[in-house]
């Protein structure tokens, strides 16, 4: 094994606090080593909206070492000053802490540089390598590099090859053997568009990088609630004993957006709801929800458990696709009091497009814990509210002691884990309405982050960038997870293409999806929640 690999392994295994005895007990017990972050495709929207604010807020919280340096790398002909202005604009408009503190910005901006270059041009990469060496010398970044690929996925292959060719990938990539620092690469979704393309992409990445250098970002995993899901399950004695088929009737995962495709009509029309949302966000949420307790709360163990859940999701046969999936597309309607045009009337969308903007499906996890518990999933655009939640419906009490003739059955107990907005956890149970009769009504016990902890949660990108710099891959997706997710979804896409269950149901914008989705769940005696 290479020196690089060993270093990464030992790094992942040891918490940073153990390495610097003075860090124990400090507010920031994990401080990344000095490093340079190279944003490839730095002039894009992502840098402005997410990366720059996240870095600024990390800086503001003192979570980054003073040596930390950012190098923007892109085609556009910008000066460093112009690039700084670009980042500053992003922070001014999108940071959760505003106004910007001049002193923090000043020290941050001292460490911002820009390198112009075409991604396929080896001389540009050589210039970048030279610049990084100089930064290592001048700013003491010790050869540690983090490459953030803020570019479309079709460029990943080329860029990673160039990183390797320029000797920036660490020893494994044929770089300078005396090279001592670490080199990590963050890639954004989509991780391929099917199993074959995902495998190809993974293979291309690994020609240059070790798996532990690759950080596939799914920002859902950086959200506080998703991390709290593990705390909720494994940090409390109360819930884990009932977290199984004996007590849980069914699980609903909802990822609802109010927006339409908003300017990304062309790329969305190639993707659709299934690949855009289910492949990554939904399956990741489901895996964290359903996984077995990991041996230790560490990247390798966590990801082992998550992939076991995905392996237990049996790919559907064409007949099952027909029975357990519903595709939908929105037509014009009203969302949040505003008219929304039909999907096919959106710019760049073909007028005869049959791409799904909504999908409802039922997964089965065939494990000892979950056999027989349906996982209902729905996600869509132009729905009435923006919400992401996992709702657990518990089994009914064995005898209906309180039901009266003609009265509706009691509501089942629900535990809803809300990922966004209003992150929190809600438990719904029946209580007696005060008075002489015996009337029962559902009541909510509601925990919300915002009202219990009066602190602002960090943005997911802050959490994830910091984790990556520290070398903690717990909240990133591993190659086998990505490939297994496609193994689950490919049969669905194939069956749809073959006309099995692929019928497109239209739904008006601002509704909760097509009627066929209601039928999917109602024929099993359940109904969708209205979150």
């Amino acid at each position: 094994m290479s020196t690089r690999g060993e270093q990464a392994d030992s790094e992942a295994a040891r918490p940073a606090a153990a390495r610097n005895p003075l860090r124990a007990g400090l507010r920031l017990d994990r401080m990344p080593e000095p490093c340079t972050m190279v944003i490839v495709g730095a002039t894009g929207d992502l840098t402005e909206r997410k990366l720059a604010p996240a870095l600024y807020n990390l800086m503001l919280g003192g979570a980054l070492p003073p040596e930390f340096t950012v190098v923007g790398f892109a085609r556009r002909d910008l000066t460093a000053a112009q690039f700084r202005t670009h980042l500053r604009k992003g922070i001014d408009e999108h940071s959760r802490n505003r106004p910007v503190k001049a002193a923090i910005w000043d020290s941050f901006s001292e460490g911002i540089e820009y390198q112009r270059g075409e991604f396929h041009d080896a001389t540009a990469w050589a210039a970048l390598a030279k610049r990084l060496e100089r930064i290592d010398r001048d700013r003491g970044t010790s050869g540690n590099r983090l490459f953030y690929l803020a570019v479309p996925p079709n460029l990943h292959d080329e860029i990673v090859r160039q990183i390797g060719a320029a000797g920036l990938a660490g020893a494994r990539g044929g770089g300078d053997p005396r090279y001592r620092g670490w080199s990590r690469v963050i890639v954004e979704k989509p991780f391929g568009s099917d199993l074959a393309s995902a495998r190809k992409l993974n293979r291309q990445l690994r020609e240059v990088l070790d798996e532990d250098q690759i950080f596939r970002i799914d920002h859902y995993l950086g959200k506080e609630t998703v991390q709290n899901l593990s705390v909720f399950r494994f940090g409390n004695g109360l819930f884990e004993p009932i977290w199984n088929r004996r007590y849980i009737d069914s699980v609903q995962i909802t990822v609802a957006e109010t927006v339409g495709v908003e300017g990304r009509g062309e790329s969305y029309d190639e993707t659709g709801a299934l690949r855009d949302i289910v492949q990554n966000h939904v399956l990741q949420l489901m895996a964290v929800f359903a996984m077995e307790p990991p041996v230790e709360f560490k990247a390798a163990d966590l990801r082992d458990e998550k992939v076991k859940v995905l392996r237990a999701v049996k790919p559907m046969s064409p007949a099952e696709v027909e029975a357990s999936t519903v595709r939908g597309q929105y037509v014009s309607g009203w969302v949040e009091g505003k008219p929304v045009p039909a999907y096919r009337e959106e710019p760049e969308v073909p007028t005869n497009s049959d791409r799904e903007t909504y999908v409802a499906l039922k997964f089965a996890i065939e494990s000892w814990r979950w056999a027989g518990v349906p996982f209902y999933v729905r996600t869509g655009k132009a729905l009435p509210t923006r919400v992401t939640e996992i709702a657990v419906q518990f089994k009914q009490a064995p005898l209906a002691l309180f039901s009266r003739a003609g009265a509706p059955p009691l509501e089942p107990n629900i535990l809803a884990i809300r990922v966004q907005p209003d992150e929190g956890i809600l438990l719904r149970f029946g209580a007696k309405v005060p008075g002489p009769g015996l009337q029962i009504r559902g009541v909510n016990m509601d925990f919300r982050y915002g009202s219990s902890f009066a602190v602002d949660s960090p943005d997911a990108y802050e959490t994830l960038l910091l984790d990556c710099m520290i070398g903690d891959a717990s909240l990133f997706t591993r190659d086998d997870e990505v490939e297994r997710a496609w193994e689950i979804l490919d049969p669905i896409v194939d069956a749809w293409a073959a006309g099995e269950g692929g019928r497109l149901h239209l739904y008006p914008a601002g509704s909760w999806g097509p009627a066929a989705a209601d039928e999917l769940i109602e024929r099993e005696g359940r109904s969708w929640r209205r979150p």
Partner: protein
Amino acid sequence: MAKAVGRPAPARRALALHRRLMRFGQAESTVAEPWVERDTTVQAVAAHLARLWTTPLEGTDSKVTEKGMSHARASVLNLIVMVPDEASASRVVETMIGLGVRHPSRAIILVADPRAGGPTLSASITAHCHAGPEGAEPICFEVVVLTVHGEAAEHLSGIVAPLLIHDLPTHIWWPGDPPFADPIFDQLVEMGDRVVVDSDEFGDLLRGLRRLTTLRRRSGVGDLAWRRLAWWQELTAEFFDAPRFRRYLPNLNRLVIRYAVPSTQKPRRRKPVGSKPVASNVTSPLAGPMLYAGWLASRIDWKRYATTEPLEDGRLRLKLEGRHEMVDLRIEPFETDALTPGELVSVRMRAFGETGAAEFIIERSADEAVVASNADGMTALLRRMPMEQPNESELLAADLGMDQHDPVYEAAVRAAAVFLASARQVDLAG
């Protein structure tokens, strides 16, 4: 109600004090008329507290949605504040106002005077809601000010216990110089999960530190003087984050800490500096430097070895035994009026490595700090940083977020007590 004139002086003073504490309510975003009652009972106070959130409040959006009441109660924490005198009262008020949304769910501010006459118990209750972080629902809490006179002031726990929100952690903030030997101290501390003090304000620092080492609370002890050091600790730790500097850590052989003292002996009153809204009395300016030395020593296993120069005029020098080296520890006062007494002025560390001596320096002025290191024969890394000076509200708010005891602090206090005893040449076993 009788007029204040003609009342015995202590009662008048108490009323003035109570009014002053009520300012807190007025400055806050109260959502209901304050409830004020002289000569009341614990039951009456408890009954009012129980009613407080069940009726829709004026000025809030009181619609009851499917998801529950719109004003979420942040049931996180009880805080009991012991106000020893009038001077502390206004300071407590300022600090509490500064807490903002980081406020405890219920704050009980206690003014107790066993020697005063007049009504045994007077109370006022105010209810507050703060707008939460963007888009979130308002965060609501209540503040109870209790004035207890006469013999009842020696039995406070019976008054306070029924007024706490049950099943919530309770923190006790005791500003000033807590009466460690008084039974009332033990009685109140017994009720809390965590006690928060400020060792900068202890009358007898050594006695205070020793008492802290024996306090056993479920959620530990908080010390605002320790929180003031956080910034210094972060900067110090930062030197040794880079692996190439970390190896100097066991080889440190000198630590010089300078701390601020006023240039004239009097007055020793804190000057409001920067955003600091409150004046408070620093009576033990040595607390900060001793805790810092105790922290570093306990982190890297330095033991007391000998006293080189005993404590005199705020200056002391000890010889410590490190893992590889003997360490020269010096704590020196530095006269300045630009800083609050007791604040650190500079920290200098020296080590011998394979390639010669290395130095690590943090030096501050009123609003800026210079951080420099010179090691590995490398050019000195020099950095200027804006000085962050958290005010008491921020320190207290940070402490309210703690819910477990901090072994790092406890080790630092033990080491600081040993060093101070050694420098004062008193019995170490004390």
